[in-house]
């Protein structure tokens, strides 16, 4: 293989983005093909079966399990209210009957004559699925969900926490190499997707959350800060379900690292526009990266820029993604084909990078990612 494929995150000013919005279980889809939907619009809804409460009726009534069914005052499928009598013992000569009152409201799902167990199902839990992005419905899968498609500017982050949200883009800093601090956060950022430059500190996240910022985006952050914010050490990189009230996305990595100017400039172009943001990250088979989606309006960025990711060639700009040169930018200056002995002693295929500082370094091919100029 003459070329090495290197990972790269997608940052593009125009692409067709399609998202499938699905219900966890069957339900109603409220839109039809061709509808234009708003990011906050509910496109499908259903009721999830409620929580299940097993009641050991045989023990509660002190009767053999097989007698339970005949003693139930409410049969399978019937609704019961909390405190309502649902079963009664036969008693002695019709007297001294003992009643059992339901501890929960719900529906009686099953009555087992093997275990004497009655399964009480709590009230249904409503589930609503929002459109997430503004766009047009292109397909509907009846009872399950729909596909929404739209032209967007699309930015993938490397890591994020927090789930789906949306709001207008607002900048907290002037330049992409400026770190965001608590002082950069102001009251008028409530409900906004706030963009920072370099490092996000835990203080700035806290400040943003207090103000009501829906999402905070920056170049990098310290793991220590992440830990302080979450309150625990993140072990497995599966995120998105944190309930912190704010979505945080870093676009480049951990540490004090500048947001790629291309990303920053692209966001800058859309200052004030509505953006949909999702911090969910899953670094496993079936990789999921956090994303920032900005639906385009007619006339925005007509020409599509070249896709990133591809093969290494001399002259291509790249970023080194492993210490000791972590985060540095440069261009490919040579691609020696012979494996090279690294400082660690292992042999690997390498490339020579001319750093922006002018210095030339040799790094393994696995440790770079292509970026766009």
């Amino acid at each position, binding site marked *: 293989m003459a070329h090495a494929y290197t990972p790269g995150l997608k940052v593009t000013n125009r692409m067709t983005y399609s998202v499938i919005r699905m219900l966890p279980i069957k339900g109603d889809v409220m839109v039809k093909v061709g509808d234009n939907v708003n990011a906050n619009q509910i496109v499908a809804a259903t009721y999830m079966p409620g929580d299940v409460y097993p009641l*050991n009726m045989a*023990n*509660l009534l*002190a009767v053999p399990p097989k007698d339970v069914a005949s003693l139930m005052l409410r049969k399978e499928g019937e609704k019961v209210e909390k405190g309502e009598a649902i079963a009664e013992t036969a008693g002695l000569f019709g007297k001294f009957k003992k009643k059992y009152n339901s501890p929960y409201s719900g529906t009686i799902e099953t009555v087992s004559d093997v275990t004497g167990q009655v399964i009480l199902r709590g009230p249904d839990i409503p589930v609503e699925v929002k459109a997430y992005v503004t766009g047009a419905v292109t397909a509907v899968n009846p009872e399950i969900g729909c596909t929404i498609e739209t032209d967007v500017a699309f930015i993938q982050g490397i890591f994020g926490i927090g789930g789906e949200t949306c709001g207008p883009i607002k900048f907290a800093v002037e330049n992409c190499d400026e770190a965001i601090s608590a002082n950069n956060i102001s009251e008028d950022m409530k409900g906004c997707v706030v963009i920072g430059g370099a490092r996000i500190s835990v203080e700035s996240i806290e400040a943003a959350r207090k103000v009501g910022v829906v999402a905070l985006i920056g170049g990098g952050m310290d793991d220590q800060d992440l830990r302080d914010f979450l309150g625990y050490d993140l072990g497995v990189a599966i995120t998105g379900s944190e309930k912190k009230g704010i979505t945080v996305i870093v676009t480049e990595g951990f540490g004090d690292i500048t947001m790629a100017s291309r990303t920053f400039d692209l966001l800058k172009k859309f200052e004030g526009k509505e953006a949909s943001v999702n911090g969910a990250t899953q670094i496993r088979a079936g990789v999921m990266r956090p994303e920032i989606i900005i639906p385009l309006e007619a006339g925005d960025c007509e020409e599509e820029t070249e896709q990133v990711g591809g093969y290494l060639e001399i002259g291509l700009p790249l970023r080194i993604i492993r210490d000791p040169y972590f985060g540095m930018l440069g261009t490919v200056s040579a691609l020696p084909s012979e494996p090279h002995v690294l400082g660690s002693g292992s042999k690997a295929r390498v490339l020579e990078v001319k750093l922006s500082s002018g210095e030339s370094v040799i790094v393994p091919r696995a440790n770079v990612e292509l970026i766009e100029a």
Partner: protein
Amino acid sequence: MRIRNILAVVVAMSMTCFAAAQSPSPAPSLVPEPPTDLIVADTPDDAGNSVEVHWNLSESDVFNTLLSDTQEVNPQQIVATYTVERKVTDGNGNEVSDEDASWRKVSEIGAGESQWTDRSVNLGWSYDYRVCAVDNQGDKSTWCNASGSVTPVMQMFNMSKAWLAIWMLLFGAFIAYFINCARSGKKLWVRKIAGLEAIDEAVGRATEMGRPILFVAGIQDINEIQTLAGLTVLSRVAKTAAEYGAQIEVPTCRSLVMAAARETVEAAYLAAGAPDSYQPDRIHYLTDEQFAFVAGVTGYMVREEPAACIYMGGFYAESLILAETGNHIGAIQVAGTAMPSQLPFFVASCDYTLIGEEFFAASAYLSGDPLQIGSLKGQDYGKFLSVLVLIIGIFFATTISMTESDESDGFGAGALNYIQNNILGNEGFGSFGGGDTDIEGDDS
């Protein structure tokens, strides 16, 4: 004139007396030799309510070891008893009756005894004592008087128990220290008791097999400590059973045990969050009769085949009958008893056995309560210390008997003596290596 007459009479009388003693008359009234060196002293280390009286035996006392073999005591002089008399010299401000204020016999002690403790004295009063020897004919020797009066006083500390106090303090300190350790969250290591660890396994087995668990808390009544220890274990078994959803069957031999067991099990089910699964009918009274009870329990075992049988409490002859039946039906069996005679039977026929102490330590082990764990640990250290002293004593005793050295004042003998009399005995701190401490019969 009159004075001269009186004097003459006195002289004459004394002359007569003297003559009588001297003359070898056929019926001489011989009196025994008097005891000598009467010492009275306040009893040390007491509440001030006794006085020790000590004298040297009379020379007419056949038990007097100071007499040489050749010396013969005139049979008519042989001492039969000693009479101790006492009078109050100072009532410490209290009114003293005339009777007390004069010499009064307070005790009669057999020949050969050279001491007596007067326990009828009052604190702070002063007493004089005298003693005389009395022979078989009732002839009294001359009185031997104590050199001075004695006043019993109370001591704040009983120094003879000084070592005991040290032991108590050490024990207490150990326990306090370990309780403190346990409370402050330090992990105290308690040896795994396989039998208790196995309870989860036994209950699990019963659950998997869909069979009940049989628990027998011994055949003793509720006032016996073993029954109580058994109920502690029952609480744990019941809690596990409640969590796993297994049935527990507790036949009892005493009605009160049944009541206590029901309380225990109900509380355990409540704690496990399954009060609805508690079935009081399964904890029932069978009979007080030992063998009728055994017959009832074994009958149940054979019919229902419980998957786990747990015996915790005081057992007698029924131990082997129960355990063998349990083994026969293929149950996991856990036993615990402090009955030494029944332990071998349980060990041989059960899967796990808690032996004596282990059984009592069970509650600390199971509860994990810092107070209990700490005191368990503290007691262990105390026991360790005691065993250490015993081992040192055994070591000295052995070396002395091995070397067969007669010299009782060597270091070994001294040390052994000290351990026997001071550390384990009543001599208090005393002095080490003292040949002067006389060995008494009291060894604790």
